[in-house]
């Protein structure tokens, strides 16, 4: 198995004054090219911290991230992030938000006209080309997240990092966007790492599900392969025995073996 993205013995300790909190402990994971991997765990287990470490936005205390056998420790467009709250710049239009990244990444390799066409291509991939001149405040939450995905895709990342991308959306919009992401993954073959706390979402989208134990000192508790063939159909899966079994496994892990103690 060739490791495309490798998380190598990652520990993360937060220090505030004299108090230290160990958030992540001994995280080892290898992800192959084109794989869709989800990380699931209760809130506060450090899964977002892990994503930030991979993105380079936070440093690991020990250990490191290898992408194509090179260590990465600063943020860059090869690991584009789709943020939970979309993080579009409100003073730029939809087009300009995507263009910002495109201009930086392809400043040497693409001409102006090519960059323009590339932005529009990515906007149409997420069905947002019609809203190119709208500002983020003028479009719905689901549309904002689509633009956020287009912005990340347009940077042609080696790994696409999704930080609870559908968490802030209502159930119907979420399902719609999940289908879109599945279709994009099918079409473009991106390597995707997604943080989620939604069991159905994880099973539906992923090739592998990484389950994290509760923090502090969260570890990888279990990794589950999802042997469902693609393309996957939401409706057919609802009755599929494999789907239900995977779902069962994740639920058992989260609610029996690693109950969220602080939940109230």
């Amino acid at each position, binding site marked *: 198995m060739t490791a495309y993205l490798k998380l190598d013995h990652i520990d993360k300790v937060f220090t505030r004054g004299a108090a230290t909190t160990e958030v992540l402990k001994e995280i080892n994971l290898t992800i192959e090219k084109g794989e869709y991997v989800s990380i699931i765990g209760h809130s506060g287990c450090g899964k977002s911290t892990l994503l930030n470490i991979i993105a380079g936005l936070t440093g690991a205390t020990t250990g490191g991230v290898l992408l194509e056998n090179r260590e990465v420790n600063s943020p860059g467009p090869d690991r584009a992030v789709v943020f939970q709250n979309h993080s579009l*710049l409100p003073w730029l239009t939809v087009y300009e938000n995507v263009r910002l990244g495109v201009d930086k990444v392809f400043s040497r390799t693409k001409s102006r006209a090519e960059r323009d066409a590339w932005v529009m291509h990515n906007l149409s991939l997420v069905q947002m080309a019609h809203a190119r001149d709208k500002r983020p405040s003028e479009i719905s939450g689901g*549309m904002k997240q689509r633009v956020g995905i287009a912005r990340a895709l347009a940077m042609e990342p080696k790994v696409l990092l999704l930080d609870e991308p559908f968490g802030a959306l209502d159930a119907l919009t979420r399902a719609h966007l999940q289908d879109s992401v599945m279709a994009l993954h099918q079409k473009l073959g991106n390597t995707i790492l997604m943080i989620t706390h939604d069991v159905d979402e994880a099973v539906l989208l992923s090739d592998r599900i990484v389950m994290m134990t509760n923090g502090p000192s969260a570890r990888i508790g279990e990794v589950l392969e999802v042997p469902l063939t693609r393309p996957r159909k939401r409706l057919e899966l609802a009755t599929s025995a494999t789907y239900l079994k995977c779902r069962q496994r994740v639920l058992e892990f989260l609610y029996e073996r690693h109950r969220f103690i602080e939940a109230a």
Partner: protein
Amino acid sequence: MNMSAAKIEIETATPAASAAPVVAMTPKRPPRTEAYARMARQTAARVIPPLVVIALLTLVWELVCRRAGSALPPPSKVFKDTKELILDPFFDHGGIDKGLFWHLSASLQRVAFGYSLSAIAGIALGVLVGQSVWAMRGLDPLFQVLRTIPPLAWLPLSLAAFRDGQPSAIFVIFITSIWPIIINTAVGIRNIPQDYRNVAAVVQLNPLEFFSKIMIPAAAPYIFTGLRIGIGLSWLAIVAAEMLIGGVGIGFFIWDAWNSSHISEIILALFYVGIVGFVLDRLIAGIGKFVTRGTAQN
């Protein structure tokens, strides 16, 4: 169980969900005449109350000051005395014997110059203090002390330094209006959401691009708050400074009128000072509103 039920709902609801925003984006428009009538009503509702209040206050002023031997002239006398100044603001008899337009324009020029300098320096220092913890620790106490010094207290020092009235007046405007600009800019920079910084980091903006594409737009609402306070302060300072340095300018016009006991002229000048100050404030607010459109509401 309810799982599969939820999925069926999602599938069927999808077309409706994508169609809904289109409906929301084309609101129905009422007929034209109705719209005009409503606009007129709204304007009247805004204009009439202040007009009524002004009329009442003028009446009270007239009644109080009309009796013989009152220290201040009533509005009717003010108007009679200053009719020439009001009707011909553009005369120029040489020296400081000029129409009010020239006095106001001289003051406005000083303000424009000093305020532009303080806007540039204020935003630059504000960015520095907002961005760097060390700059904040080092400079903030200094700013907090300096900003409490009244504008006119700077005047003798600046006269000593520049040995001329004109640059001294400009310096006083500069030093008066810079503090709110620095402080508000710094707050704006410090309040840039981490999300925007993350976006900039992932896209790998260089510091210059980060400044122009993220920092300034994100902090613009705060910066304009500072600029708006600053323009008000600089207009306050110029009138006072001009009284002392002399020459052409609305401040000295007021002082000159007092020395020649032309009380009516003072009242007229105060009226103009108020109007100009109001217009300046609105101007900066308007520019701010235009520049930060989209930024304020998220």
